[in-house]
């Protein structure tokens, strides 16, 4: 069964900590994405990558960075976590092509205290 795997379902971190969220896909997808989901705000794109070592800013990149050293892995980094980064983080991947939807991971619920 093909999937997108996010390393943690729940995470609690302290303000100021450096946080790594990992995402791995086994579908050989070119594109990978990080979204956050907040009540009343829907899904907002943080960063995406269309190839290894390539990254593009999404709609809300401030306070985040990403790393894609291998095709199957896309990491989201919070350099210095803040309470307003408490959210559900969703990783997704896709092929490039009109008929392909995104496959999402199950999400990481991050709480920054």
């Amino acid at each position: 069964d093909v999937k997108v795997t996010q390393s943690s379902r729940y995470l609690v971190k302290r303000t100021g900590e450096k946080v790594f969220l990992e995402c791995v896909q086994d579908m050989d997808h070119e594109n990978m994405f990080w979204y956050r989901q907040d009540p009343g705000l829907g899904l907002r794109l943080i960063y995406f990558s269309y190839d290894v070592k390539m990254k593009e800013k999404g709609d809300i990149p401030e306070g985040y960075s990403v790393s894609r050293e291998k095709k199957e892995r896309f990491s989201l980094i919070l350099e210095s976590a803040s309470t307003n980064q408490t959210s559900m983080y969703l990783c997704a991947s896709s092929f490039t092509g009109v008929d392909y939807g995104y496959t999402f991971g199950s999400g990481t619920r991050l709480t920054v205290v």
Partner: protein
Amino acid sequence: DQQVKQNSPSLSVQEGRISILNCDYTNSMFDYFLWYKKYPAEGPTFLISISSIKDKNEDGRFTVFLNKSAKHLSLHIVPSQPGDSAVYFCAASSRTGGADGLTFGKGTHLIIQP
């Protein structure tokens, strides 16, 4: 400015009836539209999509209609079942394939009443 709008945060429908979820968009460059379904504590799952060259796409109980002149699309679920209770997200892409990221609406929480 929100480019994809789902103006109904929630919708309650009786089991067996038709559920109609609406979505409006403002960016005329969008050429591909998708619907995703999300249960609590799970990632969204792809439901159905439509290209801007079509005005209707059907898959079992799910049909998506696109009205390009009105910049409006809708998802019809017939008949509605209890397992359809979830949050539904409308999404749009300005480049076929979505390689530059989908733009999502805020979602509509569909509740199917027994």
